[in-house]
């Protein structure tokens, strides 16, 4: 059987109705009892008191001797005492008021309770003793008016209670509506929140403190949710962006490495072809000079020369692949900027197991170098360092400092020392000796062409700088590059 689910206001209203359906009849019967009792008691009290007073009158006033007096008193009981029957009985003699009802049966004792006898008459019998008289006053009071009053009171009470019930139901409905309206609003908002709409504010205006507090708590929660949601969205976006950036950087690096390989290859081929082109151009040119202008092979030689020059151009074009290296422009640069830029690139690519540290002097003179090549240099050294630490935790330190009197042999000018230090595997002295040779590599086939450090060496030399390497097996490796320091700005001629 499905569970019945009624709305809040129906629950409250039904509850109120149920409570009243139990309470109101009880109230009705209880109060009816009290009303009836009090009316009956009053009636009986009156009947008995009246009877006693009348009986006293008979005893005190010697009325028993006068037939007319007796009749007067009995008539008085009918006209003024509320009785419907009045009789004086004395030893076979019975005097009745003529106003009374003749159908009422006599010869009975005093009724003990209201409604006894079932004839609607309450009987009071009082003995009258005076001198030699032994008589009985028999009065019959009509129960009907009292009965009617009771009925009227009960009917009025019933109407009152019914009115009360209606008012109570109306109040219950109004109240439950007032209660359920903010709840409905809370429900709507929480439903909106659960479906992902955090924008609807909870403006619940209610005088009920609990609901108001609940609404406030929910609103606070919504605010929190909005915040959490915003933060989450921001985080996801950030992550997406960093993912995209990472991919972009990796693409850049791959492209760079490919360029480097192609450039190296191209430069090798270029060297060969350029060497071959020298005799072709020179011999053809001189042959052309020797031949008379009318000579038949001349046109052919002109074409040979043109073809050789085209070959020269083609080689030049191929060499634009390695233009980055080939067209290095030396300028005064701040190595700190190069390091910062390369670090930005490298920290996105380095595995998380590697901690990157920097030890950079705050004030450094400029050096004469090509910033693109210097960045290339740094990337090569960093890549080499992290490959040396591959699969393990390690620290990569990048340092920059000014040395007025470098400790390295042969160098006497002020230098800017730039070093990259790793805590990797380290190398033995045989490896260190050959480390800058091209195609020399300790990596397995496919991991690297072994050109990185020879390129580094080439770049360093092209800057007029010096590179040294120190390494210890199991401890790590440090590459140091000593750039000749450019004169400080204040020492430079303006």
């Amino acid at each position: 059987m499905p569970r019945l689910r009624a709305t809040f206001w129906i629950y409250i209203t039904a509850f109120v109705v149920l409570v009243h359906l139990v309470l109101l009849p009880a109230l009705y019967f209880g109060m009816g009892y009290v009303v009836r009792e009090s009316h009956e008691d009053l009636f009986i009290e009156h009947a008995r008191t009246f009877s006693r007073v009348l009986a006293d009158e008979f005893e005190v006033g010697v009325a028993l001797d006068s037939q007319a007096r007796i009749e007067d008193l009995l008539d008085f009981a009918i006209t003024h005492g509320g009785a419907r029957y009045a009789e004086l009985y004395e030893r076979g003699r019975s005097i009745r008021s003529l106003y009374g009802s003749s159908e009422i049966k006599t010869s009975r004792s005093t009724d003990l309770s209201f409604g006894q006898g079932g004839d609607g008459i309450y009987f009071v019998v009082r003995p009258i003793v005076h001198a030699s008289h032994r008589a009985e006053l028999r009065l019959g009071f009509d129960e009907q008016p009292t009965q009617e009053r009771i009925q009227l009171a009960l009917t009025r009470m019933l109407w009152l209670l019914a009115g009360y019930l209606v008012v109570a139901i109306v109040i219950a409905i109004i109240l439950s509506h007032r209660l359920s309206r903010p709840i409905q609003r809370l429900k709507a908002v929480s439903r909106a929140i659960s479906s992902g709409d955090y924008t609807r504010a909870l403006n619940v205006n209610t005088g009920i403190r609990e609901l108001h507090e609940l609404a406030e708590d929910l609103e606070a929660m919504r605010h929190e949710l909005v915040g959490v949601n915003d933060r989450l969205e921001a985080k996801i976006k950030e992550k997406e962006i960093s993912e995209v950036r990472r991919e972009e950087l990796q693409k850049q690096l791959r492209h760079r490495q490919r360029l480097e390989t192609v450039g190296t290859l191209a430069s090798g081929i270029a060297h060969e072809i350029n060497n071959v082109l020298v005799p072709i151009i020179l011999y053809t040119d001189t042959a052309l000079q020797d031949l008379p202008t009318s000579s038949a092979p001349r046109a052919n030689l002109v074409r040979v020369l043109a073809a050789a020059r085209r070959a020269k151009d083609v080689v030049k074009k191929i060499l634009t692949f390695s233009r980055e290296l080939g067209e290095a422009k030396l300028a005064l640069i701040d190595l700190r900027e190069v390091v910062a830029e390369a670090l930005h690139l490298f920290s996105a690519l380095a595995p998380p197991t590697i901690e990157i540290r920097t030890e950079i002097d705050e004030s450094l003179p400029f050096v004469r170098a090509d910033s693109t090549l210097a960045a290339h240099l740094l990337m090569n050294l960093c890549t080499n360092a992290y490959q040396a630490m591959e699969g393990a935790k390690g620290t990569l330190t990048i340092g920059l400092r000014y040395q007025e009197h470098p400790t390295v042999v042969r160098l006497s000018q002020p230098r800017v020392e730039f070093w990259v230090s790793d805590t990797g595997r380290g190398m033995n002295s045989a490896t260190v000796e050959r480390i800058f040779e091209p195609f020399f590599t300790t990596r397995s086939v496919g991991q690297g062409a072994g050109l990185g450090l020879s390129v580094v060496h080439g770049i360093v030399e092209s800057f007029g700088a010096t590179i040294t390497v120190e390494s210890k097996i199991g401890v790590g490796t440090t590459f140091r590059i000593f750039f000749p320091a450019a004169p400080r700005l204040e020492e430079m001629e303006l």
Partner: protein
Amino acid sequence: MQHILVVDDEPDVRDSVKYVLDRAGYSVRTAESAMEALAELARNPTDLVITDIVMPQVNGVEAVESIRKAFPAVRIIAISGGGNFGVTDYQPSAITTTAYLAAAERAGAHLVLTKPFETFELIRSVEQVLGVGHA
């Protein structure tokens, strides 16, 4: 007559340069290595050395340095056709033509020339370095 020594490990380059300069009226000798060139310089008076940079054993940059030291009066033109990273003739000081020639210039070459060059470029460079027309 001015004496020129052409140093290159490539016979074709060596011979063609010699041929052009011979025709231009110079007395030209050749050497195929830096060692041979130094020996030749010691043997005969020479005004100008035209040397390649990428050569086996002793490279052109070192050759330039040695010549400058031993024969300071000799003028030098360095020629190069670009980097070659062959294991045997690896030159750490150079990765490109520009870098090679820059290294040679730093070592003391009076002029550098990129291979391949035209006949007139070669002759004009030789004249320039030997100070023809300026003397």
